[in-house]
């Protein structure tokens, strides 16, 4: 009950146009000139001190990007993006190689404090739950600080920014970068490959269970900048890691572009759990501004008996276009996708997953809950396919949508392709509004209408919330409250 009350309070406090993370940090930055050209790609590569092969890789991606056209199949509409009007690189000036947290610009630390991200190690240690979380913070496009590195290194875990990884562990990066999401995978992945400026890199060695949760916070601060980060996570044989990702942006009238690529690789018996709380600025209540979130996330269960699990809570962004996927290549591998997508105002969400069954005895599980309110459109789009050799592939999909108000839309577009008789696929989906019977039942027992709605919604999304790491649970319940404000009678 306490949690629900908390949600209600949150709902009362925060309106759609009072985005909590909407402040801007005044900080000096180094920017690349506006627009995109091979020179900009070279500029970024040089700034990062990258080896020559990386520059080649980027330029090749740029060439491929030029030949591609923007995808139009998603159920979202927005004015055409002028890719020459964006800044592709912006870095906080003070980050030229901070040796410790003390050297980090206090303004930045203040920013993270406002976001509620405990960067200082002692604060983490003193955390309420006593849980340790190693944090990599990415501000605009550059990784600012990574905590707990030493402790992680003791168990052999590498957790650093991807630019550092390119210098320190070139073999690993070379081997795995682009092996799950190739450069020419899609329009935005190609763009990202050409201009990504930073991101996180994680390598868990054979047989190691990562001793703490790893976490990255992304923040777009600068005006007109695109954020293009790249995350690469490799879990070697028998390894386990749980990774959290959070993101916010200031309130701006213009749209900002976020086009990230996340690649996960799980080798034999490895397990990766990837959780996202996406809270980019969604625009104001009239649909002005907000982040375009065009993200390619894909995991490759490369080894036998490997497992990749995606959990996402999507509440932000003006437009979301993302499909965290699993390629179930190894025999007996397993993919999971748990998602809550909440849209309000004029948000447009087109999200879902792909489960590609290639190996024998592979299984996948999809739970997707979409909640649409206001004038928003919320689409689940997913594919489950079993190839000829994927004997005994199993899938269960359940995607439910809830509509709040009569100006919004909820859509389901699943593709189910079984090319193998022993594949066993089940898909079910429902759409409904909050049942009046349920509300009546709750209100009859003394809850107000708002409380009743919050209770029903929390119950509706519980399947997914259960899969979130503890650290995110409380935050998510608050977010649900925020996003639904304005939709309850």
């Amino acid at each position: 009950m306490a949690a629900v009350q908390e949600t209600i309070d949150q709902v009362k406090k925060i309106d759609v146009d009072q985005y909590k993370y909407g402040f801007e940090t005044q900080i000096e930055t180094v920017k690349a000139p506006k627009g995109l050209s091979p020179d900009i790609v070279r500029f970024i590569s040089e700034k990062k001190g990258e080896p020559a092969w990386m520059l080649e890789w980027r330029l090749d991606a740029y060439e491929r990007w030029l030949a591609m056209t923007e995808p139009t199949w998603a159920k979202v509409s927005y004015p055409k993006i002028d890719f020459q009007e964006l800044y592709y690189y912006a870095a906080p000036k003070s980050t030229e190689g901070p040796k410790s947290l003390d050297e980090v610009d206090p303004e930045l630390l203040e920013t993270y404090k406002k976001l509620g991200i405990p960067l200082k190690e002692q604060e983490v240690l003193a955390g309420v739950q006593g849980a340790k979380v190693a944090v990599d913070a990415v501000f605009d496009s550059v990784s600012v600080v990574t905590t707990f590195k030493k402790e992680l290194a003791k168990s052999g875990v590498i957790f650093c920014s991807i630019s550092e990884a390119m210098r320190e562990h070139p073999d690993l990066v070379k081997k795995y970068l682009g092996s799950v999401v190739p450069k020419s995978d899609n329009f935005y992945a190609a763009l990202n490959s050409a201009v990504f400026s930073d991101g996180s890199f994680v390598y868990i060695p054979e047989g190691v269970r990562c001793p703490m949760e790893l976490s990255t916070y992304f923040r777009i601060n600068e005006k007109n900048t695109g954020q293009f980060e790249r995350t690469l996570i490799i879990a070697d044989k028998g390894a386990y890691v749980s990774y959290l990702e959070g993101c916010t942006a200031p309130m701006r009238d213009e749209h900002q572009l976020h086009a990230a690529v996340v690649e996960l690789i799980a080798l034999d018996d490895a397990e990766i759990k990837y959780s996202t709380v996406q809270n980019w600025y969604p625009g104001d209540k009239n649909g002005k501004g907000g982040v375009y979130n065009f993200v390619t996330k894909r995991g490759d269960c490369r080894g036998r008996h490997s497992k990749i699990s995606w959990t996402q809570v999507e509440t932000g962004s003006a437009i979301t276009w993302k499909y965290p996927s699993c390629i179930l290549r190894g025999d007996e591998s397993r993919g999971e996708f748990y998602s809550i997508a909440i849209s309000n105002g004029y948000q447009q969400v087109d999200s879902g997953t792909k489960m590609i069954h290639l190996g024998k005895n592979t299984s996948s599980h999809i739970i997707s809950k979409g909640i649409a309110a206001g004038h928003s459109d919320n689409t689940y789009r997913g594919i489950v396919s079993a190839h000829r050799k994927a004997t005994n592939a199993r899938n269960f999909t359940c995607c439910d949508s809830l509509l709040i108000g009569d100006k919004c839309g909820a859509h389901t577009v699943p593709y189910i392709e079984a090319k193998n008789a022993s594949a066993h696929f089940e898909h079910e989906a429902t759409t409904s509004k909050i049942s009046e019977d349920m509300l009546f039942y709750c209100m009859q027992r003394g809850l107000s209408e708002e409380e009743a709605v919050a209770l029903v919604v929390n119950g509706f999304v519980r399947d997914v919330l259960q899969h979130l790491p503890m650290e995110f649970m409380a935050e998510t319940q608050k977010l649900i409250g925020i996003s639904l404000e304005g939709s309850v009678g």
Partner: protein
Amino acid sequence: MNVAVMKTRAEVALTEGFAGVADALPGSDEVRQARTAAIGRFAAHGLPHRRIEEWKYTDLRGVMKDALPLAVGDQTKTTIADVIVAMGALGRIDAPRLVLVNGTYRRELSNLDGISGVVVTPLSAALQAGASASLSLDEEDRGSQALLALNAAYVTDGAVIDVAAGTKLAEPLLVVHVRAGGIAQRTVSRSQIRVGDGAQVTIVEMFVAVPGSIADGQTNAASEVVVGANAEVGHVKVAMDLGQVIHLANWLVELGTDSNYRAFQYTSGVGLARNQVRTTFKGENAKLDISGAFLARNSEHIDTTLFVDHATPGGESRELFKGVLDGEARGIFQGKVIVRRDAQKTDGKQMAQALMLSETAEFDSKPELEIYADDVVCGHGSTSAALDGELLFYLRARGIPLKEARALLIQSFIGEAIDKIDNVAVREALMSEAETWLAASI
């Protein structure tokens, strides 16, 4: 990127072949103009291909290598006995029928005596009388627009069925499209069904072949159905034992207030079939049930594509499609349910299930929901799997041999769909057809 797509041989033949047959096609001057306009529309679109989302799984441009010559003014020697044999188990049903052989109405084979309240006219006669408006049908997806345009340009005949308000017809009305003779041809037909307010009728459209006739051909069939207020319509389509044909069928249905429309589509033994149905709720509180069974083996390809458009409040829709796939067969189900802003209190349910009997069969399913009204209940489901080992074990543990156990399970699977047909005679005939088909797979 503006790349002009090369026209395929079939597309060229379909576009340029029109001038050669235009004079032989029935219709007044006005109709002829409408036909010419339609061939222009087709030329602009070309054949549907997999880059069109609705045709993702059925790449007609790739499959249809060439256009067969149009069947027009058929004169094959076909007897009533031939027609009855072609109809299989349904030939035992004693009911009024309109027979078309290779796309031409054959009066001597038809039997429309003794039905009152229903006027059945061959479409060719209506076109001669100048009914050109009937050729302006359209669809939303580009692929089906092209096929409907082709249908309008080339249509040779069909049935125009007018059911007067309040008419209650006990026995079903059969429209039998028969293929006969030894020449591979393209047949183009269209039915128009208008059911007056409060009428009750069951119409069965059949596509069958005289045994021994050439197992090849191309069919482009369209049906327009307008269901009046409070009317109850059963509408069954049967396409069976046609061989290596390309069978393209489009239904466009409009439902009046408080009407009840129950459709069923049975497809087996068809090389490539695309059955598309678009239903639009025009009046409030209408009820719709579209169900079907498809049985495919060898390299057969059966595509069922439904659009259910809830445009008015209070509608109810149910879809249940079941398929049995053997050999290298491919089954496709695409079902899109749209609930418009005003269509409050809509209740929609959809289910597609495939049973795969071989390792190499394939089932692709895309049950789609697009919902803009908040006070609705909508659900869909899709499953595909092989026969359940535990169920087989259960039956065998009770002394039932494997073969019979399999037969029992498959029959009950497909029977659940066929049970949706209200008319007892039609239901039993189709169940017996399905059993005959299944016997070869067990």
